[in-house]
């Protein structure tokens, strides 16, 4: 199956995009939701500011879902939804929208990502604490296994673990441990006779990096472990039920902003990792666009990715042979090593009480692996062509266009969606909504009940995404995931030692240690970059205040003022920097910290960077500024300059 991950702005515009993609030969839908929808906030919530319609489509209620799917044959369509914390809700909206199109739920096919652990570990769009989140997952699995037999209720994601720095062994081990936690939770909620069907409905979403031989071995290792897990832990008899099914999005971590055209080759090689051997071939592939490190891909960029899959499938002889690694000593040896390593790491997680209880441990391990990878890049031990080697380049015609080679979402969308959700609330039958929410709250407080029927009733009644999530937040409580940075051991190198001397000198002149606040405003949960910055600043000798993700501008400004920091660093990867950075600057002024310099990092096009500097931002960093030591030197220099303690 071939598809591209797509969706932006509102339901109507995304629907047009889907119809165009289907006309070009795409065979399924992959829906991208915006961050407010993913984290359970309506477009008019304070935290949604700057994020509405940015990284995906805004779906606030049943009306939006119906418009999104208008004219698409849902009885035949296979729809993958990248939705996690609010998966039960979006699935309910999908079911209700299908009803309106006269398609019964048992005919629906598709996937809800619905994997919460990797949200705590990497992606950051969680809404509820781990216990209740696992219950929501178990509820959707129990519901779909019985009512929507062709639905994949969960996609266990190892993809984001690799993005967070996981080694192949960690990726395998944490994904399998995660699957065990989910299956154990479901086992308590369904008839034991259903367990083989449950096991068979679990699919994976993996990552493939550019080391494509090892990556292929990784997939074979996962298939082996999965088969064994089904047989031994869950007593699944049928071989078909134990088959390792996975979809894949190839690596975005390795895509570079420098010489972005090279990413096309990387993507092609990564696609081979998941297709080469038939015994471990992906069922669905999504390829990223070449310019993901620059900003949002345009429709043409996505078409280019789709064409790569079509060349692989229809021009090459890839699909004509049985498994080409059968009997390969090299491949079997690699697989054996990975399986052994993964078993060891799985045992460690089990010792800690399983994947839910081991979140802190896994997060800290990932931060550590990511830092090691970055250290190798900086030291030149790991080559990234065009970035730390072979960096000379002719001017690129690809990024020379007026739009800089990326898609810019119309800023009007947010205002439109805000107005739309307000008029939706005003026009619906409020009594039915109130009643549906009362029932939902009761069901949420009773762990013995399945959340799905009350959720579907709420969707029908016209409840909004924010109302559904707020009802559950009230019942389950709020949650902040671990940052993983606290325990990271210090590293040293000549450059870091030099930095430390400079930090020491400036601290001495200031009278107290240079203090640096690293903040992530808004709903963007991609914290890997911010974590690496925080750890490196610590290694360079600074006192670092890092509070994790999802902070309002007001929270950041209050922390900066109360903590008496000398400099503030903000990281935003969702494209909402144009709204959020000015808001933080304003909040800093209000908090009496107007003189504290602010630096910004993220996927920020040059035209936006210039505008931010104009507003008073001291420096803007993008993925091409991969040398963290250089960034630290800048930041210490900035503190010295502002305090007039220059060298």
């Amino acid at each position, binding site marked *: 199956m071939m598809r591209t991950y797509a969706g932006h702005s509102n339901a109507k515009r995304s629907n047009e995009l889907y119809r165009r993609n289907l006309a070009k030969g795409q065979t399924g839908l992959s829906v991208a939701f915006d961050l407010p929808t993913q984290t359970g906030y309506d477009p008019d919530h304070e935290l949604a500011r700057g994020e509405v319609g940015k990284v995906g489509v805004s779906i606030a209620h049943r009306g939006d879902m119906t418009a999104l799917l208008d004219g698409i044959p849902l009885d035949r369509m296979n729809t993958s939804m990248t939705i996690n914390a609010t998966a039960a809700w979006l699935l309910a909206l999908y079911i209700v929208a299908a009803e309106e199109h006269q398609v019964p739920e048992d005919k629906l096919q598709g996937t809800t990502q619905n994997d919460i652990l990797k949200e705590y570990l990497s992606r950051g769009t969680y809404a509820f604490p781990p216990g209740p989140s696992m219950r929501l997952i178990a509820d959707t699995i129990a519901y779909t296994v019985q009512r929507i037999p062709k639905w994949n209720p969960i996609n266990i994601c190892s993809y984001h673990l690799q993005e967070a720095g996981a080694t192949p062994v960690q990726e395998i081990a944490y994904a399998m441990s995660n699957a065990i936690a989910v299956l154990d939770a479901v086992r308590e909620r369904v008839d034991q006779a259903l367990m083989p069907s449950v096991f068979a409905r679990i699919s994976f979403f993996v990552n493939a990096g550019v080391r494509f031989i090892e990556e292929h071995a990784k997939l074979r290792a996962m298939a082996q472990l999965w088969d064994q897990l089904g047989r031994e832990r869950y007593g699944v008899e049928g071989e078909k039920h134990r088959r390792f099914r996975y979809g894949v999005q190839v690596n975005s971590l390795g895509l570079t902003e420098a010489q972005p055209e090279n990413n096309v080759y990387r993507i092609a090689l990564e696609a081979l990792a998941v297709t080469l051997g038939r015994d471990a071939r992906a069922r669905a592939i999504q390829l990223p666009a070449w310019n993901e490190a620059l900003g949002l891909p345009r429709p043409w960029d996505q078409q280019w990715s789709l064409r790569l899959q079509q060349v692989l499938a229809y021009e090459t002889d890839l699909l004509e042979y049985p498994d080409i690694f059968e009997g390969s000593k090299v491949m079997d040896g690699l697989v054996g090593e990975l399986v052994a390593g993964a078993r060891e790491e799985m045992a460690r997680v089990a010792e800690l009480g399983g994947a839910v209880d081991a979140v802190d441990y896994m997060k800290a391990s990932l931060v550590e692996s990511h830092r090691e990878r970055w250290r190798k890049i900086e030291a030149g031990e790991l080559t990234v062509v065009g970035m730390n080697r072979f960096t000379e380049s002719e001017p690129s015609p690809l990024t020379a266009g007026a739009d800089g080679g990326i898609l810019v979402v119309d800023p009007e969308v947010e205002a439109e969606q805000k107005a739309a959700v307000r008029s939706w609330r005003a026009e619906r039958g409020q009594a039915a909504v109130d009643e549906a929410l009362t029932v939902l709250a009761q069901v949420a407080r009773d762990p013995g009940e399945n959340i799905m029927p009350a959720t579907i009733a709420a969707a029908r009644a016209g409840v909004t995404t924010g109302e559904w999530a707020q009802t559950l937040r009230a019942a389950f409580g709020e949650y902040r995931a671990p940052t993983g940075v*606290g325990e*990271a051991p210090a590293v040293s190198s000549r450059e870091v030692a030099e930095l*430390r001397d400079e930090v020491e000198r400036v601290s001495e002149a200031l009278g107290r*240690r240079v203090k640096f606040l690293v903040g992530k405003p808004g709903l963007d949960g991609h914290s890997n970059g911010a974590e690496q910055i925080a750890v490196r600043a*610590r290694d360079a*000798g600074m006192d*670092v205040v890092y509070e994790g993700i999802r902070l309002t501008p007001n929270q950041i400004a209050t922390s900066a003022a109360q903590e008496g920091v000398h400099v503030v660093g903000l990281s935003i990867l969702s494209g909402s920097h144009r709204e959020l950075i000015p808001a933080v600057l304003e909040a800093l002024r209000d908090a009496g910290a107007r003189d504290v310099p602010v630096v910004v990092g993220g996927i920020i096009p040059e035209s936006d960077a210039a505008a931010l500097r104009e507003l008073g931002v001291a420096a803007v960093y993008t993925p091409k500024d991969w040398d963290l030591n250089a960034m630290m030197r800048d930041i210490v220099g900035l503190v010295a300059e502002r305090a007039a303690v220059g060298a």
Partner: protein
Amino acid sequence: MTHSVPDGRTLGARLKQGDLDVAPAVLNLVENRSPAAQEQTGALLAAVSPAQLGREARAHIVGITGPPGVGKSSLLSRLVAEWRGRGRSVAVLAVDPSSRRSGGSLLGDRARIETDPSDGAVFIRSTVAGTRLGGLAPATRAAASALAAAFDVVVVETVGVGQSETEVADVADTVAVVVQPGAGDVLQFLKAGIMEIPDVLVVTKADLHDIARRAVADLQAALRALGATATAVLAVSSVAPPTGIAELAAALEAHRAGLDLRRRRLRARRMHALEDFVTEYGERGLRALGGRRHAERWLAEQDPDLDVAALEHRLAERAHGP
């Protein structure tokens, strides 16, 4: 950002007037190790000393300590909300457990205390531990006594067991040790006399009903065996719906009401001066005073109206001559 050192007396005067906005500047000053700043810190502490105020500083200084991971920050979120509900202003000095590595540190504690950022009557500052894991940095002692002149409650939060409560007892009016049910170490430490008996013992995770109740009973039995019947033992739950928080606030207050505050604060100032002296002159300075116990006895004989800087000055004179 200016690099000049603010005037300690002015900051002290603003604290005396109850100006809470000055808290960040106070912390920036007391954390500043330059000689000029240390001098101004002395002036600040003198300006808010009982001799100047005409009484002990108003705040209830509460020490909250316990092993890592027992839920101190969640508990603190609830306690701060409780105090705010009663109209009290609150300053939290969170001593981060992460030891210094490579000179730098990662301060993550404030993230775990949930408050309303627009509430000007709540101040939170993360501070780095002193030389020992969980030990108090000199700045924390100075900050606690200074902020006590303006805030209704000043919390010093530290991590550890066996020593942290001893150190925090030098600063705080009331010390609460937080433990989780099933953790036997605190019970063992209590029985073995390794840890000082706290003023209040808090058992978290009361939502685990029976286990929490058993932990409370075990601790009460151990305290009875030690004859420490004055220590309140309470079970609290910080997860929704929270329980036991109002009772805890009441227990802390009851302890403070029964306290000879002047005596406890006087001892705190003397210990503060001694710690500052040790930071400045080290073990060698301490030996010149005839050792720690001797120095403490000598301090106990000094004029009770002396402020911290004056006491430290006298210690220095005694050790090294005028």
